[in-house]
Protein backbone atom coordinates (compact mmCIF):
# COMPACT_ATOMS: atom_id res chain seq x y z
CA UNK A 1 0.00 0.00 0.00
CA UNK A 2 1.37 3.39 -0.90
CA UNK A 3 1.60 5.94 1.89
CA UNK A 4 -1.15 8.50 2.41
CA UNK A 5 -0.30 12.11 1.64
CA UNK A 6 -0.63 14.33 4.73
CA UNK A 7 -0.42 18.12 5.08
CA UNK A 8 -0.87 20.37 8.09
CA UNK A 9 -1.29 24.12 8.36
CA UNK A 10 -1.16 26.75 11.06
CA UNK A 11 -3.67 29.58 10.66
CA UNK A 12 -4.75 31.92 13.53
CA UNK A 13 -3.68 29.86 16.52
CA UNK A 14 -0.83 29.49 18.98
CA UNK A 15 0.86 26.41 17.38
CA UNK A 16 -0.15 24.42 20.46
CA UNK A 17 -1.94 21.87 18.26
CA UNK A 18 1.27 21.29 16.31
CA UNK A 19 3.17 20.98 19.61
CA UNK A 20 0.61 18.38 20.66
CA UNK A 21 1.15 16.63 17.34
CA UNK A 22 4.88 16.43 18.13
CA UNK A 23 3.99 15.13 21.59
CA UNK A 24 3.04 11.85 19.91
CA UNK A 25 6.77 11.18 20.39
CA UNK A 26 7.83 7.71 19.19
CA UNK A 27 4.39 7.15 17.70
CA UNK A 28 5.46 9.61 14.99
CA UNK A 29 7.67 6.80 13.70
CA UNK A 30 4.67 4.46 13.60
CA UNK A 31 2.76 7.09 11.65
CA UNK A 32 5.67 7.76 9.30
CA UNK A 33 5.27 4.20 8.02
CA UNK A 34 1.73 4.99 6.92
CA UNK A 35 1.78 8.64 5.88
CA UNK A 36 4.12 11.12 4.22
CA UNK A 37 4.05 14.61 5.72
CA UNK A 38 4.34 16.84 2.66
CA UNK A 39 3.46 20.34 3.77
CA UNK A 40 3.06 22.51 6.88
CA UNK A 41 5.05 24.32 9.57
CA UNK A 42 6.99 21.12 10.35
CA UNK A 43 8.12 20.74 6.72
CA UNK A 44 10.35 22.96 4.63
CA UNK A 45 8.38 22.66 1.40
CA UNK A 46 6.70 26.00 0.65
CA UNK A 47 4.05 25.12 -1.93
CA UNK A 48 0.81 23.31 -1.24
CA UNK A 49 1.07 19.91 -2.99
CA UNK A 50 -1.70 18.34 -5.06
CA UNK A 51 -3.66 15.13 -4.40
CA UNK A 52 -3.51 15.21 -0.63
CA UNK A 53 -5.33 12.55 1.38
CA UNK A 54 -5.52 14.20 4.80
CA UNK A 55 -5.12 17.83 5.88
CA UNK A 56 -4.99 18.97 9.51
CA UNK A 57 -5.98 22.60 9.99
CA UNK A 58 -4.87 24.35 13.17
CA UNK A 59 -6.28 27.80 13.89
CA UNK A 60 -9.21 30.02 13.00
CA UNK A 61 -9.57 31.63 9.57
CA UNK A 62 -8.56 35.18 10.37
CA UNK A 63 -6.69 36.78 7.45
CA UNK A 64 -6.75 36.94 3.64
CA UNK A 65 -3.87 34.47 3.61
CA UNK A 66 -5.73 32.01 5.90
CA UNK A 67 -8.69 32.21 3.56
CA UNK A 68 -6.60 31.38 0.48
CA UNK A 69 -4.76 28.55 2.22
CA UNK A 70 -7.84 26.87 3.63
CA UNK A 71 -9.68 27.01 0.29
CA UNK A 72 -6.72 25.60 -1.59
CA UNK A 73 -6.16 22.83 0.95
CA UNK A 74 -9.82 21.90 0.82
CA UNK A 75 -9.71 21.61 -2.96
CA UNK A 76 -6.62 19.45 -2.89
CA UNK A 77 -7.50 17.07 -0.07
CA UNK A 78 -9.89 14.16 0.40
CA UNK A 79 -10.25 14.53 4.19
CA UNK A 80 -10.06 17.88 5.97
CA UNK A 81 -9.67 17.86 9.74
CA UNK A 82 -10.40 20.88 11.97
CA UNK A 83 -7.73 20.28 14.60
CA UNK A 84 -8.29 22.02 17.93
CA UNK A 85 -10.71 24.57 19.31
CA UNK A 86 -9.53 27.49 17.12
CA UNK A 87 -10.28 25.56 13.93
CA UNK A 88 -13.51 24.14 15.39
CA UNK A 89 -14.99 27.18 17.20
CA UNK A 90 -12.59 30.10 16.43
CA UNK A 91 -11.85 30.04 20.20
CA UNK A 92 -9.38 32.68 21.48
CA UNK A 93 -8.71 34.36 18.09
CA UNK A 94 -12.45 35.16 17.96
CA UNK A 95 -12.19 37.24 21.13
CA UNK A 96 -11.25 40.15 18.84
CA UNK A 97 -14.44 39.81 16.83
CA UNK A 98 -16.69 42.07 18.88
CA UNK A 99 -14.16 44.95 18.81
CA UNK A 100 -13.67 45.45 15.06
CA UNK A 101 -10.44 45.19 13.05
CA UNK A 102 -9.39 48.87 13.29
CA UNK A 103 -9.48 49.10 17.04
CA UNK A 104 -7.67 45.76 17.38
CA UNK A 105 -4.86 46.91 15.05
CA UNK A 106 -4.64 50.29 16.78
CA UNK A 107 -4.29 48.60 20.15
CA UNK A 108 -1.58 46.23 18.92
CA UNK A 109 0.46 48.47 16.65
CA UNK A 110 -0.11 52.02 17.92
CA UNK A 111 -1.28 52.25 21.53
CA UNK A 112 1.10 49.58 22.81
CA UNK A 113 4.03 50.28 20.44
CA UNK A 114 7.07 51.96 21.95
CA UNK A 115 8.91 52.29 18.63
CA UNK A 116 7.53 53.23 15.19
CA UNK A 117 3.84 53.06 15.98
CA UNK A 118 1.78 52.34 12.85
CA UNK A 119 -0.25 49.54 11.34
CA UNK A 120 1.84 47.50 8.85
CA UNK A 121 0.45 47.71 5.32
CA UNK A 122 2.79 45.32 3.50
CA UNK A 123 3.93 41.69 3.82
CA UNK A 124 1.53 40.95 6.68
CA UNK A 125 -1.81 39.73 5.22
CA UNK A 126 -4.89 41.85 5.93
CA UNK A 127 -7.19 40.72 8.71
CA UNK A 128 -10.73 39.64 7.89
CA UNK A 129 -13.55 41.38 9.80
CA UNK A 130 -13.99 38.28 12.00
CA UNK A 131 -11.91 35.27 12.96
CA UNK A 132 -14.09 32.34 11.88
CA UNK A 133 -14.18 28.61 12.46
CA UNK A 134 -12.99 26.60 9.44
CA UNK A 135 -16.46 25.09 8.96
CA UNK A 136 -17.87 28.52 8.10
CA UNK A 137 -15.48 28.78 5.12
CA UNK A 138 -15.17 25.24 3.72
CA UNK A 139 -16.77 21.86 4.51
CA UNK A 140 -14.99 19.98 7.31
CA UNK A 141 -14.94 16.16 7.53
CA UNK A 142 -13.62 15.63 11.05
CA UNK A 143 -13.83 17.90 14.11
CA UNK A 144 -11.22 17.42 16.85
CA UNK A 145 -12.03 19.76 19.76
CA UNK A 146 -9.45 20.46 22.45
CA UNK A 147 -7.03 23.23 23.36
CA UNK A 148 -4.90 21.55 22.30
CA UNK A 149 -6.31 18.11 21.56
CA UNK A 150 -4.15 15.64 23.52
CA UNK A 151 -1.46 13.77 21.54
CA UNK A 152 -3.36 10.50 22.17
CA UNK A 153 -6.43 11.95 20.46
CA UNK A 154 -4.45 13.17 17.44
CA UNK A 155 -2.76 9.79 17.13
CA UNK A 156 -6.07 7.94 17.37
CA UNK A 157 -7.65 10.30 14.82
CA UNK A 158 -4.84 9.80 12.31
CA UNK A 159 -4.79 6.02 12.80
CA UNK A 160 -8.54 5.81 12.19
CA UNK A 161 -8.30 8.01 9.09
CA UNK A 162 -5.44 5.91 7.73
CA UNK A 163 -7.70 2.87 8.11
CA UNK A 164 -10.42 4.71 6.19
CA UNK A 165 -12.68 5.32 9.19
CA UNK A 166 -14.08 8.61 10.51
CA UNK A 167 -13.29 8.57 14.25
CA UNK A 168 -15.86 9.20 16.98
CA UNK A 169 -14.04 11.42 19.48
CA UNK A 170 -16.84 12.37 21.86
CA UNK A 171 -15.48 10.15 24.65
CA UNK A 172 -11.91 11.37 24.31
CA UNK A 173 -11.90 15.12 23.93
CA UNK A 174 -14.06 18.21 24.33
CA UNK A 175 -13.94 21.99 24.01
CA UNK A 176 -11.18 23.41 26.19
CA UNK A 177 -9.57 20.04 26.93
Amino acid sequence: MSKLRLATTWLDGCSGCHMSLLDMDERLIVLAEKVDLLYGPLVDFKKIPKDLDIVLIEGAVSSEDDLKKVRKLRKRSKILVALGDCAVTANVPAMRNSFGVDSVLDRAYKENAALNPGVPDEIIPALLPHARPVREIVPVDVFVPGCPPPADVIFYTLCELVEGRIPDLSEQTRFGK
Partner: protein
Amino acid sequence: MSSQVRILTFKIDDRDVSAREGETILEVARENGIYIPTLCHLEGLSSTGACRLCIVEIAGRPKLFPACVTRAEEGIQVITQSERLTKYRRVILELIFSERNHVCSVCVSNGHCELQNLAQKLGMSHIHMRYRFPSLNVDASHDRFIMDHNRCILCTRCIRVCDEIEGAHTWDLMGRGVDARIISDLDQPWGESETCTGCGKCVHVCPTGALVEKGKSASEMAKRQQFLPYLTLMREEKE
Protein backbone atom coordinates in the same frame (compact mmCIF):
# COMPACT_ATOMS: atom_id res chain seq x y z
CA MET B 1 -55.52 17.80 55.10
CA SER B 2 -55.83 14.29 53.82
CA SER B 3 -52.78 12.09 54.31
CA GLN B 4 -53.95 10.00 51.40
CA VAL B 5 -51.56 10.61 48.49
CA ARG B 6 -52.78 9.45 45.12
CA ILE B 7 -50.33 7.22 43.33
CA LEU B 8 -50.12 7.40 39.54
CA THR B 9 -48.71 4.66 37.38
CA PHE B 10 -47.32 5.25 33.92
CA LYS B 11 -44.40 4.29 31.69
CA ILE B 12 -41.02 5.90 31.05
CA ASP B 13 -39.11 4.26 28.19
CA ASP B 14 -41.29 1.14 28.49
CA ARG B 15 -40.56 0.81 32.20
CA ASP B 16 -43.48 0.81 34.64
CA VAL B 17 -43.02 3.62 37.15
CA SER B 18 -45.16 5.14 39.86
CA ALA B 19 -45.39 8.72 41.06
CA ARG B 20 -47.06 10.65 43.83
CA GLU B 21 -49.65 12.99 42.39
CA GLY B 22 -48.00 16.33 41.57
CA GLU B 23 -44.55 14.91 40.90
CA THR B 24 -42.88 15.95 37.63
CA ILE B 25 -41.73 13.50 34.97
CA LEU B 26 -38.13 14.53 35.68
CA GLU B 27 -38.46 13.73 39.41
CA VAL B 28 -39.90 10.31 38.67
CA ALA B 29 -37.22 9.60 36.04
CA ARG B 30 -34.45 10.49 38.50
CA GLU B 31 -36.00 8.35 41.25
CA ASN B 32 -35.84 5.46 38.82
CA GLY B 33 -32.33 6.16 37.58
CA ILE B 34 -33.48 7.18 34.10
CA TYR B 35 -31.26 9.89 32.59
CA ILE B 36 -32.80 13.04 31.14
CA PRO B 37 -30.34 15.88 30.38
CA THR B 38 -30.97 19.15 32.25
CA LEU B 39 -29.26 22.51 32.45
CA CYS B 40 -31.47 25.17 34.06
CA HIS B 41 -32.97 22.69 36.53
CA LEU B 42 -31.33 22.38 39.95
CA GLU B 43 -32.62 20.29 42.78
CA GLY B 44 -33.65 22.53 45.67
CA LEU B 45 -34.85 25.36 43.42
CA SER B 46 -38.17 25.84 41.66
CA SER B 47 -38.34 24.63 38.06
CA THR B 48 -38.82 27.08 35.25
CA GLY B 49 -38.32 25.19 31.98
CA ALA B 50 -35.93 27.82 30.62
CA CYS B 51 -33.42 25.67 28.74
CA ARG B 52 -35.72 22.99 27.27
CA LEU B 53 -32.97 20.37 27.28
CA CYS B 54 -35.17 18.03 29.34
CA ILE B 55 -37.81 17.75 26.61
CA VAL B 56 -39.46 14.33 26.33
CA GLU B 57 -42.09 12.79 24.09
CA ILE B 58 -45.44 11.54 25.33
CA ALA B 59 -46.90 8.87 23.04
CA GLY B 60 -49.91 10.08 21.08
CA ARG B 61 -49.25 13.79 21.64
CA PRO B 62 -47.52 15.73 18.88
CA LYS B 63 -45.67 18.35 20.95
CA LEU B 64 -42.64 17.91 23.18
CA PHE B 65 -42.84 18.39 26.95
CA PRO B 66 -40.19 19.81 29.30
CA ALA B 67 -39.86 17.04 31.90
CA CYS B 68 -38.92 19.44 34.72
CA VAL B 69 -42.29 21.25 34.67
CA THR B 70 -44.60 18.56 33.28
CA ARG B 71 -46.51 16.62 35.91
CA ALA B 72 -46.89 12.87 35.72
CA GLU B 73 -50.27 11.61 34.55
CA GLU B 74 -51.95 8.24 34.88
CA GLY B 75 -51.30 5.93 31.98
CA ILE B 76 -49.05 8.10 29.80
CA GLN B 77 -46.08 6.67 27.94
CA VAL B 78 -43.02 8.91 28.22
CA ILE B 79 -40.10 8.57 25.81
CA THR B 80 -36.82 10.15 26.96
CA GLN B 81 -34.50 9.09 24.11
CA SER B 82 -35.30 9.23 20.40
CA GLU B 83 -33.75 10.53 17.22
CA ARG B 84 -36.08 13.51 17.29
CA LEU B 85 -35.22 14.41 20.91
CA THR B 86 -31.49 14.01 20.30
CA LYS B 87 -31.76 16.36 17.35
CA TYR B 88 -33.68 19.02 19.27
CA ARG B 89 -31.39 18.80 22.30
CA ARG B 90 -28.34 19.17 20.07
CA VAL B 91 -29.81 22.22 18.35
CA ILE B 92 -30.67 23.81 21.71
CA LEU B 93 -27.09 23.31 22.90
CA GLU B 94 -25.64 24.62 19.66
CA LEU B 95 -27.83 27.72 19.86
CA ILE B 96 -26.63 28.36 23.41
CA PHE B 97 -23.01 28.12 22.25
CA SER B 98 -23.61 30.38 19.26
CA GLU B 99 -25.50 33.04 21.22
CA ARG B 100 -22.68 34.37 23.42
CA ASN B 101 -18.91 34.01 23.74
CA HIS B 102 -18.10 30.67 25.31
CA VAL B 103 -14.33 30.42 25.06
CA CYS B 104 -13.85 27.19 27.02
CA SER B 105 -10.06 27.07 26.82
CA VAL B 106 -9.50 30.31 28.75
CA CYS B 107 -12.63 30.19 30.93
CA VAL B 108 -12.23 30.00 34.70
CA SER B 109 -14.86 27.24 34.68
CA ASN B 110 -13.09 25.08 32.08
CA GLY B 111 -13.40 21.47 33.21
CA HIS B 112 -16.11 22.30 35.78
CA CYS B 113 -18.77 23.63 33.45
CA GLU B 114 -22.19 22.00 33.10
CA LEU B 115 -22.64 23.40 29.58
CA GLN B 116 -19.28 22.04 28.46
CA ASN B 117 -19.95 18.65 30.06
CA LEU B 118 -23.34 18.42 28.43
CA ALA B 119 -21.86 19.23 25.00
CA GLN B 120 -19.49 16.32 25.41
CA LYS B 121 -22.16 14.01 26.79
CA LEU B 122 -24.50 14.73 23.89
CA GLY B 123 -21.66 14.24 21.40
CA MET B 124 -21.47 17.83 20.19
CA SER B 125 -18.10 18.35 18.46
CA HIS B 126 -19.03 21.61 16.70
CA ILE B 127 -22.01 23.82 15.95
CA HIS B 128 -23.83 24.07 12.63
CA MET B 129 -24.87 27.74 12.79
CA ARG B 130 -22.77 30.89 12.75
CA TYR B 131 -21.49 32.31 16.01
CA ARG B 132 -22.92 35.72 16.89
CA PHE B 133 -19.82 37.06 18.69
CA PRO B 134 -21.82 39.70 20.61
CA SER B 135 -20.14 42.51 22.54
CA LEU B 136 -20.99 41.91 26.21
CA ASN B 137 -19.93 43.37 29.53
CA VAL B 138 -18.09 41.88 32.45
CA ASP B 139 -19.27 43.32 35.79
CA ALA B 140 -16.34 43.14 38.22
CA SER B 141 -17.66 45.85 40.55
CA HIS B 142 -18.36 43.45 43.41
CA ASP B 143 -15.60 42.95 46.00
CA ARG B 144 -15.51 39.17 45.74
CA PHE B 145 -17.41 38.09 42.65
CA ILE B 146 -17.59 38.66 38.89
CA MET B 147 -20.56 38.51 36.51
CA ASP B 148 -19.37 37.68 32.99
CA HIS B 149 -22.29 38.05 30.59
CA ASN B 150 -20.25 36.38 27.83
CA ARG B 151 -20.72 33.02 29.55
CA CYS B 152 -24.32 33.47 30.74
CA ILE B 153 -26.92 31.06 29.32
CA LEU B 154 -29.92 32.72 31.02
CA CYS B 155 -30.81 29.60 33.01
CA THR B 156 -31.99 31.93 35.83
CA ARG B 157 -30.63 29.69 38.58
CA CYS B 158 -29.00 32.77 40.15
CA ILE B 159 -32.31 34.63 40.18
CA ARG B 160 -34.11 31.69 41.76
CA VAL B 161 -31.53 30.91 44.45
CA CYS B 162 -31.27 34.58 45.43
CA ASP B 163 -35.04 34.91 45.65
CA GLU B 164 -36.09 31.52 46.98
CA ILE B 165 -33.22 30.55 49.27
CA GLU B 166 -31.39 33.75 50.25
CA GLY B 167 -34.53 35.90 50.11
CA ALA B 168 -32.70 38.92 48.71
CA HIS B 169 -33.92 38.92 45.09
CA THR B 170 -30.94 40.93 43.91
CA TRP B 171 -30.94 39.29 40.48
CA ASP B 172 -33.57 39.53 37.80
CA LEU B 173 -33.98 39.36 34.04
CA MET B 174 -34.15 42.39 31.72
CA GLY B 175 -34.91 42.62 27.98
CA ARG B 176 -36.30 40.07 25.58
CA GLY B 177 -35.00 37.38 23.27
CA VAL B 178 -31.42 37.88 22.25
CA ASP B 179 -31.21 41.10 24.30
CA ALA B 180 -32.26 39.40 27.55
CA ARG B 181 -29.71 39.54 30.32
CA ILE B 182 -29.30 39.12 34.04
CA ILE B 183 -29.31 42.35 36.07
CA SER B 184 -28.65 43.16 39.70
CA ASP B 185 -31.18 45.42 41.45
CA LEU B 186 -32.45 47.99 38.92
CA ASP B 187 -29.71 47.27 36.37
CA GLN B 188 -27.02 48.77 38.61
CA PRO B 189 -23.43 47.54 38.98
CA TRP B 190 -23.38 44.50 41.26
CA GLY B 191 -20.92 46.17 43.62
CA GLU B 192 -23.40 48.99 44.25
CA SER B 193 -26.32 46.69 44.97
CA GLU B 194 -28.12 47.50 48.21
CA THR B 195 -29.88 44.15 48.37
CA CYS B 196 -26.96 41.76 47.72
CA THR B 197 -25.85 40.08 50.95
CA GLY B 198 -22.64 38.77 49.38
CA CYS B 199 -23.61 35.18 50.27
CA GLY B 200 -22.26 33.77 46.99
CA LYS B 201 -25.08 31.26 46.48
CA CYS B 202 -25.67 32.54 42.93
CA VAL B 203 -22.00 31.95 42.11
CA HIS B 204 -22.14 28.33 43.19
CA VAL B 205 -25.38 27.41 41.45
CA CYS B 206 -24.30 29.02 38.15
CA PRO B 207 -23.69 26.15 35.70
CA THR B 208 -21.05 28.01 33.65
CA GLY B 209 -18.36 30.63 34.15
CA ALA B 210 -20.87 33.51 34.18
CA LEU B 211 -20.84 33.98 37.96
CA VAL B 212 -17.44 33.34 39.48
CA GLU B 213 -15.21 34.21 42.40
CA LYS B 214 -12.52 36.82 41.87
CA GLY B 215 -8.90 35.70 41.71
CA LYS B 216 -9.54 32.47 39.82
CA SER B 217 -7.49 31.65 36.74
CA ALA B 218 -8.49 29.39 33.82
CA SER B 219 -9.97 26.07 34.97
CA GLU B 220 -9.78 27.00 38.67
CA MET B 221 -13.43 27.80 39.39
CA ALA B 222 -15.06 24.63 40.73
CA LYS B 223 -18.54 25.22 42.08
CA ARG B 224 -19.87 23.76 45.33
CA GLN B 225 -23.58 23.07 45.20
CA GLN B 226 -23.90 20.66 48.14
CA PHE B 227 -25.29 23.42 50.36
CA LEU B 228 -28.54 23.62 48.45
CA PRO B 229 -30.24 20.27 49.18
CA TYR B 230 -28.90 20.56 52.76
CA LEU B 231 -30.41 23.99 53.29
CA THR B 232 -33.71 22.93 51.73
CA LEU B 233 -33.85 19.83 53.95
CA MET B 234 -33.11 21.78 57.15
CA ARG B 235 -35.84 24.28 56.36
CA GLU B 236 -38.40 21.59 55.56
CA GLU B 237 -37.67 19.92 58.90
CA LYS B 238 -38.25 23.18 60.75
CA GLU B 239 -41.63 23.61 59.11
